[in-house]
């Protein structure tokens, strides 16, 4: 049975385009044009993933997300436009799995959908060995190899990395990382992250100035790919 995706956006042309593109990739697609019908559609069809626009009439994307999260952990990817940074981060902290900024490419959309579905099906907590390009991670023994050579990490470096490893491919917000690693009192100390991410890049990336594995999501957080 094909996987079901719910597309929620108030722009008809975008709904149609996304729907065509996703159907062509073998998904079953449902569309909703506002927050209320989105909730109805969600309860009726129980989709495997939701694409949710943040700026909608009647009920905002954030409210819809909060309603959904009360009962379900279904992957949600929010769609936002530039200058909506705050809503975007709020949505991620409220439980959205990832985000895309309009205008976005369809290729990027498909990649994000694949990551979200994979992370949801095979909960990464249960996967001990993760391989990303020439990097290999063993979460059980907390070891990291680069080109089959073991890389030595400090305690905090490993905790930062572990945070990203739990959500491979998806964005992890500054707030999520800071509260998980240092605690709720450190939510504004984003420079901690900058420093440790920079150290991790020096140890793991081929060219730390031009990272391809540990990516920065400007103003939002980081993504391990």
């Amino acid at each position, binding site marked *: 049975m094909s996987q079901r995706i719910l597309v929620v956006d108030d722009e008809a042309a975008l709904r149609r385009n996304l729907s065509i593109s996703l159907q062509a990739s073998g998904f079953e697609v449902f569309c909703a044009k506002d927050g209320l019908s989105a909730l109805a559609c969600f309860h009726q069809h129980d989709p495997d993933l939701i694409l949710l626009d943040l700026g909608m009439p009647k009920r905002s994307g954030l409210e819809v997300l909060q309603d959904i999260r009360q009962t379900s952990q279904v992957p949600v990817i929010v769609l936002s436009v530039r200058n909506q940074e705050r809503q975007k981060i709020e949505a991620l902290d409220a439980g959205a799995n990832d985000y895309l900024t309009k205008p976005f490419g369809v290729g990027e959309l498909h990649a994000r959908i694949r990551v979200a579905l994979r992370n949801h099906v095979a909960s990464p907590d249960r996967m001990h060995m993760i391989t990303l390009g020439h990097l290999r991670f063993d979460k059980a023994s907390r070891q990291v190899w680069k080109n089959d050579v073991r890389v030595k990490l400090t305690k905090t470096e490993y905790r930062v990395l572990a945070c990203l490893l739990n959500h491979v491919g998806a964005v992890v917000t500054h707030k999520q990382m800071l509260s998980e690693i240092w605690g709720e009192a450190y939510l504004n100390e984003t420079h901690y992250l900058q420093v440790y991410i920079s150290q991790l890049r020096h140890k793991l990336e081929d060219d730390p100035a031009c990272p391809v594995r540990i990516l920065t999501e*400007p103003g939002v957080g980081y993504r391990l790919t």
Partner: protein
Amino acid sequence: MIGRLQGSSGWSYGLSFVAMVALTLVNALWVAWIGYWSVALVFLLGVMALACVLPLYPALFAAAMSTLCWNIFFIPPVFDVQILDVQDLLMCCTYFIVALLITALTRRIRAQEERVLQREQRLSSLYQFSQRLVTAPDQEALLHAAKAEIARVLAAEVQILLPACEGESPFESHAMGVLGIPLATPENVYGCLWVCKRDAWQHGQRSFLEIVARHLALALEREALRAVAHQHALHHLSERLYDTLLDSVSHELRTPLTTIQCVLDNLQQPHILEHSQWRHSLLADLTHASLRLDHLVANLLDMSRLQSGRFQLNRDWCDPRDIVQSVLKALQYELKDYEVQVKTAAPLPLLYVDYGLVEQALFNVVHNACTHNAPGTCIVLNCGVEAERFVIRVEDQGHGIPEAQWEALFEKFYRLPDSHAPGTGLGLSIAQGFMLAHGGEITVCNLKSGGACFTLALPLTPVPQLPVEEVDDVTAHSRG
């Protein structure tokens, strides 16, 4: 002194009386030596002196009293009004007439002197007044100066009503000493000057007020004309800006829209659609057009954000290398035909800035570098720290920018006169706005090799201390 003595007449009469008594006593002392005729000259001196300082009637009183005192106490028979000698009688009568005449004449000279003084005061205050009117920077200052000056000169309450309020007095109706004078020039009436004086109007004060009102009216007319001229200039400027905006934005919007329209029409032709090479190049054009529209919309939004003056910096710590990388990623399509070099002087400090704004500023500068330079040339991004500031230099291999244009380059809608590259002239203006908002700056210069070099500089913020960390390798230990 004079004014005070004129102030109370009872006091003046008292002074006359006391002075005459004193003179009589003094004369009584030396009458034996100088003789009773010379005494009259001493009295006459006293009367003259009093006439200089006292009003007319107290002075006349002094003259009469001195005659009486001379007659009674000095002309024989002493202590008697009667005068027996004809010569003495003639002297006494002559003395009385001379004393009266001297008093009257002295008073007249005094009065004339006072008038001259007053006139001079009025002239000098008029002069000061017109000077203050000329130097007043705006209408409010003008009215304030006028009120203060009139109140000072006339010791009165002053109100200026603009525009003229149909003869309504701002003071209690029918109050004594209220005077309203229209502020009128031959062409226009600008308002009304109301003056409320507690004491009586003096000679010349009304004419002074009329002259002042005329001056004020002329100054108000000047202000009104200046306001009109200013409005006109503003209007002209905004019209010009609007035209430029409309021209450049409509051109910039229409060009990619035309491309999109053409590509879509072409793609509907089956024989074009089947030709894979054509199809690919058409689709590439479509991508380019949509990127260009996105860039334009971003610039317009940024400009309106800057113009509104309400945008807030959303500062957070960020790695400058991330900013450079995300700009290069966002511009990868435009930069694909250029050789891009990023040179960083390690280690780079963390910046405490609004990531999005700094990114957009750098984006605009790098975007300019690729639209204004031929494909195949090299664009260098040089990052480092200079003089306590983080600096990114964007260098190209073009022909540079004439020094005369350096300043104008950052003005809104400014485009280099010989520029053929597309654009609205907003990019650098926005970049400058965003850098200034951070307390930084953007400057331009030419390289020795001929290309242009844009320098973005941001002040550094000291990075707070990190918690101390154990340096050992944790992966060998068991889980905590």
